[in-house]
């Protein structure tokens, strides 16, 4: 019950539900999860961006291109938003948007 409650409000530290394969990612078998599930200090590679429209475009413009490496720098004091390092730049995203970015460990 407690678990469900915290999961619902996004306060859990554990793994998020694995992404249901988005329309762009057909990969099977490989461990893929979304950016918001990566804990600070870890690096991962972008597989693809889900969704459509302005948010997606803005993320692409900012350099969230498939194949690029991305490092989760830190959480905000209240765990949301998160700070990411993409090449030389530091970008801040809400978890909700980070959940649109499918990544691969390593």
């Amino acid at each position, binding site marked *: 019950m407690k678990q469900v409650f915290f999961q619902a409000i996004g306060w859990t530290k554990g793994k998020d539900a694995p992404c249901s394969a988005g329309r762009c990612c057909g990969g099977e078998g490989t461990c893929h999860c979304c950016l918001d599930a990566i804990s600070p200090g870890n690096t991962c590679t972008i597989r693809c961006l889900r969704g459509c429209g302005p948010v997606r475009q803005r993320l692409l413009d900012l350099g969230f291109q498939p194949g690029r490496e991305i490092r989760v720098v830190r959480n905000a*004091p209240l765990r949301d938003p998160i700070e990411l390092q993409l090449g030389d730049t530091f970008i801040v995203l809400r978890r909700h948007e980070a959940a649109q970015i499918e990544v691969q460990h390593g």
Partner: protein
Amino acid sequence: MAETGGSVLVALAGQQNAGKSTLFNMLTGLQQHIANYPGVTVDKKSGTYIAHGRTFEVVDLPGAYSLSPYSLEERVARTFLLDEMPDVVVNVLDATNLRRSLPLTFQLLEMGFRVVVALNMMDAAARRGLQIDVAALQRRLCVPVVPVVGRKGQGDAELRDAIARVAATEQVVPATLNYGSLEDDVARFQGALAAEPRLRGLPARWLAVKLLETSDEAEALLSTRLENPHSLLDALFRTRQEFEADSGVATGDHISACRDRKATEILAACVTDTRAGEVPMSEHIDRVLLNRFLAPVFLVATVWAIYQLSIVQGYALTDVTWPLLAGFRDLVAIVLPDAGFLHDPQIRSIGLWAVDSMNTLLNYVPIFLILFGLIAILEDSGYMARIAFILDRVLHRFGLHGQSTLPFILSGVFAGGCAVPGVMATKGIPDARARLATILTAPFMNCLAKIPLYTLLINIWFPETKGLMLFYLSTLTVMVALLVAKLLTSSVLRNEETAPFVMELPSYHLPSPMGVLRRAVGRTWVYVRKVASVVLAVATVIYVLLQFPGVPADRQVAYQAEAEAAIARFYDTLQGNPLRAEVADPTRLMTLVNLQSEHAAQIEAAETPSERQALDGTLKRRHPDLAPFLLGGATAETQEAASALDALATTRADLRRTLRRDRLESSFLGYLGRGLEPVTQFAGFDWKINIALLTSFAARENSVATLGVLFDQDDGQNLSLEQRMGAQQKAEGRAAVSAVALMLFFALYPPCLATVIMVRLQTRSRKWTAFSVIFPTILGLAVASAVHTVGTSLGLSGLQTMSAVYALTAGLLFVVALPKPWLHGHDGPALGEPAK
């Protein structure tokens, strides 16, 4: 295009924070003006400069990452480029972040513009250890690349040269970017589009790429230009489908990836990072400043420091500047016609009224200069973005946005600010819903002008718990603003567009004194302009409403008779006194009476006995014949004269005061104040308070000034307004609860007129402007009525009532802030009253 002699249209394009505005200022100097792009709130800055005998008109386009139609800024930039066809486009790049900047450059080149690349922030790049091979970059891009440092004005001449040179060249062949597996399709559509006579003038390749990217706007353009675009659109649709089926990647993603790859490739060839792998300085700082536990501490410390420096020290500074304003008032008083015995010339009253209204507002200028300077330092240093990062979670819960912080701070989160620059600062919020919510709630903050009324009421009713009451008030308003924001975003604003919180954290850097000064002065100037225009105009209207229709004729006659009787008594007393001859002439008597009031005021203002003596001395020198009336003296005659004048002056002052109050009561506003009593009685407001609140709509400072007139002293006693108002209100049987209701109403009071005008400018909607006035009025009245009624019926003390309201609001805030998992993504139901 670009005929010799005609003016050259230059557009500055680039991403946000690439330093476009700095370069714009560098190129145009002071020759600039700001307007809006047609139909949108985006500022259009344009300016001119002259070089090589030609005029260059420079337009600063809004910041854009690409030319996609998704954001308003990008749409505006794109429309301008397509419609106006600038002769030269200066593409401003952030040298520290070329990889992200270059895709826009590719698109500008694709559109076939004559482009000059201004490589800005070269100094920052050098500091970061980036070595940029400008010659190689120029070779790769096939356009002039000029390294500049906008903040220091380096590269100014080179940039102007390059613009002039490029403007004189023939139309360039558009540079092309190879789109790999999509290249054949691009070429095919480019050919088809170029063959359409109706699309002449539009860059065919760029249009082909845009159409393949699935850009609705490009399709709309095609539909309006072509009679039968369907075959083309069908072909496009098929091509996109086939490509997606073959490669598993959407065309848009493929195109964007091609640009990114090209940028990476150019970067690898032209930029050497000598410090690759090192942790940047900013990251070192952030490890401390954004530490999970230290971040709130630093945030609170920053806010406290701003409060101390601007509000506390700023107030100390107003002691220095106030005499200047007072001196100006005196000067105006001298220039205007002299006062009459009972009635002053209309021009004098209105002139002094205007100067007084203006002075109360101008008195805050030192505070604003410091406050806005500090905020500019926060912005330029990069810490403001971090504040947004820290607070976004909290603000987002209430439907606001991390970037709502700046408007709130400017409007006065910690007792002191102004909603006018606050509302203006909402411009940067990308989320339309959060932006509107911020515009509508920022005026709840405690602007500087609310403080005098709070101080007055607290001094009367809560002299022992001043600090606590002020703390209650200043934090309560923030809580109410958050609650109202939540209420609005989950009701009336529900269907407004929202945007994600995606923000780049800029590197820390030392703000330049010039930049800070420019911004501080600029924002203060907005405030001063408001004082000079709106407040002055409204002050005049209120003056008229307060003066007319005026005291009925029969009472006028009675006042006149009393005045004449007093003058007659004066002459009678001096019967046989040789000094009487001095003032036998009525105009001479008038001079004496005015001299008396002026002298009395000066004596009161003087602090030391020696100053008073000096004043007496000056008086003797200037008016040797009238001085005995004022100073008395050794002989019985002079003493008699002095006491006679004293009696006359007292009668006059009393008469004028009664007359003024009478006039106020029988003025339009007086009637309105009384007329509102049936509605406001539940909140415990009588007609006097109603009038004060009505006048404070023009500018909040007016409330105290109006109360000053309404709660007049009855005789020569010299009590402060606090004592007078306190005594009268207590005599009427009021309790501190009514003061609490009044303060709460004032905290929720609709924005002052200047703010309303700013809201109109920022929302561009009459509906929201009206809402910004009506909603707080209803809310404030409801809260005040509820508090007064409940507080009185329960027999609570003022402090108890305030504490109860505070606890209720805090509780409500807590309930709203708590996550509601059972609602799953839906926001809470509409809220009730924040305080009951």
